[in-house]
């Protein structure tokens, strides 16, 4: 088992290096440069040249790449070119925002999606199955900005039940401990802040969860259908187990691998930030920041944050593999 883990860790290194080359090449080869974003439309060519020289953007690309790698090796993420703000500081503010939203959305998606998938598979081809699968299709099809704005207008503007701007009301401040507002407010026993932060989370989480919910439900259904047709399920029924014990204990347990895989992949995706959801709900996360930085060609942000996101993706996949081993003894034995 430990050899397996060691091998997986080693495998991550070339993947990250490859990603760093790819990111660097992509952001530097697309046309346009950072000077226009900094100097605005009044820039002179002289001022643009001054900025390029200051940030080493006039040096050969290979040299720029190795300077970046050298800084990374020292744990230095550098500063944003536009505004000169330390990137690690910004990340420490924005990543918890993205992660809190992603975890809640994925938690809800799993909590609702897996049971829907199971029920659909048990009642295959029934009205219930048709309705839930149609709902799932709708979930993957409806554009995020349409759903987000619809929820805002219904629950935010017309009913005035829920907040939809940012993470918390402006008159409430929570001293940062973890950066997760739900946790920080509870740690400080500030129930008002907790309620307010939770209220701000509901609409963006509902918006963000639709795609993973639909995907999870569909994957659960198809995997369960496959598993429930197996001989050992018939044997389990024959030996007199209750229906629940058969479905949960034998069926779901065997269907877990693909479900864990799909949830893990979605987790990796969501943690890299959800540009549309963050834009609509003014959520100060990583996705919108990264998007703006690409537009502005703020190279240090794009390079470092994308690499970090890739690292998180790899880490999540790694954890998924560990869960495999936990869920499926054959993986343990093979390892």
């Amino acid at each position, binding site marked *: 088992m430990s050899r397996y883990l060691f091998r997986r860790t080693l495998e991550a290194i070339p993947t990250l290096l490859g990603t760093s080359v790819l990111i660097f090449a992509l952001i530097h080869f697309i046309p346009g440069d950072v000077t226009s974003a900094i100097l605005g439309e009044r820039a002179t060519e002289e001022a643009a040249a001054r900025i390029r020289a200051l940030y080493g953007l006039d040096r050969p690309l290979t040299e720029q790449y190795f300077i970046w790698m050298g800084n990374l090796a020292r744990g230095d993420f550098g500063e944003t070119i536009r505004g000169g703000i330390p990137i690690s500081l910004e990340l420490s503010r924005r990543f918890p925002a993205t992660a809190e939203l992603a975890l809640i959305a994925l938690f809800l998606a799993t909590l609702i999606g897996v049971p829907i998938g199971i029920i659909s598979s048990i009642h295959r081809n029934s009205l219930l199955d048709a309705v839930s699968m149609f709902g799932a299709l709708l979930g993957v099809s409806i554009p995020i900005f349409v759903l987000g704005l619809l929820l805002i207008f219904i629950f935010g503007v017309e009913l005035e*039940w829920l907040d939809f701007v*940012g993470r918390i009301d402006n008159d409430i401040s929570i001293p940062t401990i973890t950066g997760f507002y739900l946790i920080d407010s509870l740690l400080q026993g500030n129930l008002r802040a907790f*309620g307010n932060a939770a209220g701000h989370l509901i609409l963006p989480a509902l918006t963000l969860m639709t795609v993973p919910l639909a995907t999870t439900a569909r994957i659960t259904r198809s995997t369960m259908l496959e598993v429930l047709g197996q001989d050992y399920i018939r044997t389990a029924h024959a030996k007199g187990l209750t229906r629940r014990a058969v479905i949960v204990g034998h069926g779901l347990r065997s269907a877990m691998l693909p479900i864990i895989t799909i949830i893990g992949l979605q987790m990796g995706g969501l943690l890299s930030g959800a540009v549309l959801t963050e834009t609509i709900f003014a959520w100060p996360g990583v996705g919108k920041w990264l998007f703006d930085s690409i537009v502005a060609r703020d190279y240090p942000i794009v390079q470092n944050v994308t690499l970090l996101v890739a690292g998180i993706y790899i880490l999540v996949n790694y954890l998924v593999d560990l869960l495999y081993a936990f869920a499926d003894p054959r993986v343990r034995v093979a390892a």
Partner: protein
Amino acid sequence: MKRVISSVLFAVMLLAIAPALAQDGTTFTWGTFGNPVSLDSMNTTDGISFRVITQGCEGLLRFDKGTTNTLPNLATSWETSEDGLTWVFQIREGVSFHDGTPLNAEAVAWNFNRWGNTDHPEHFEEFIFTYYEYFYGGFDDESVIASVEATGEYEVTFTLNAANGVFLTNMAPTMTSLHSPTAVRENGTAYGDPEVGFVCTGPYQFVEWLPDQRVVLESNPNYWRETEGNVDRVVFQVIPDNAARFAALRAGQIDGTEQINVEDLDAIEMDDSLAIQMRPPLNILYVAFNFRVVELQDARVRRAISMAFDREAIVEAFYPPGAVVAKTQVPPSLWGFNDDIPFEAYDPDGARALLAEAGYPDGFSTMTIVGADEDGNVTDEVIDQRPFTIWYQPVVRPYNPDGQAIGEAMASYLADIGIDATLETRDWGEFLQLGRQGELFGIYQLGWSADTPDPDNFTGTFFINTTNPLPRSGWYQNPELDALLKTARATSSQEAREPMYQQADQILHDDVARLWIAHTGVPLGFRSCIEGYYANPVAEYYSTVVNNCG
């Protein structure tokens, strides 16, 4: 277990709803579409940063509310020598920066020297000082300002290298507002960052800036002037999406905003709880000719293209209410506007006849590009033949709500007179760079929003030969115009300058140097209970706002 979960969920819902009822009557929340870049006014060029800085930082002059007229502010009076080379300002006594540092002549001189002298210890190399370079023609010896000295405790003397008609007006915009020398020295390059903000003399002082969330300012208890408004806390709430920001206005989460989708303007008009104000137009969308295209060197071809466009239809189809068709570069709301110049009438028949006269009876679809020598003069050497191109702006600007759609309309108007044009664009940064280098071959959309309410900011910016204006003005050269605009810039009296700018626009019109398309007002949306907001294209001061929302 189920009961516990449902009780917790119910409690969360209750707690979530309750605080929404709390609303502070003296807070003014402005919904902004983006995050500021820096709160040091000389280290940024973007409107969002300037809007925040304007509420807390002041210059020697300020704008009268709702107009582009200037008033004394941190300077109480000033005198200029007859040759316009020496300016002596009397500085207001008893004013302090937010950190208690006294405002005196030393502090004023320190600010200007910091911006203009590259060897000044606080002229940080990471900072851009773009507007100093732009307002005063460069740094150090290149700057029109030769020296700034404290000649008394409250007297500052500026010595100029050349008389400059815009010098005084440039003391009013946010870019030249004064910052505390102590705060800049103490914070170094962190000055203007989210952790530090600004330290100035204005009615509001910096409280916090959470990037992509909000900037909060609160009343300066020691402000030197009585203010009209009742707002003691200003919040800039970042909501990037236009529709979501409008929803926040309807829900009362913000008190005012801009960049409202055109389709939402009708909703505001029908809703008694909301109101619209129009920020007057002080901008222009133009179409420039690249004079390294042989076909465009013929004034008859340029006139034909001008006559081919139905500007009224373009404004009607693509612009929000408040936009007007342009006939000069200087907008009608600014002094120096020449109302005697006629609008270019839409006349496709006349355009076709002119094209035929110029030797293109069947129009054309390709263009011939010639070179430029080292001095920036256009040569006769043919370097390329390409499809004739219309470059459209890839970004939305107040003066250009939809570059692509307007470009497509222009292409169809040109097709109507026989000119077959290809549409092209680039990433905005590259587009600007190509524009600066004069390599947008064909005709191209670009625009301008005023930094300062002076016709020099429109006409002088493009047609005076300073750093590299020939390429960025599409290689247009006109010595008569250049001389006239230089004289206008070096003249102090507005009465003397006004006819010069009117004549300049007449020359541009006669020469068909550029096509003027539209000047655009910007609709602002408010809750009806907000009063005392004076929409102004150069600076909007929130210290006059009265919040009656209760």
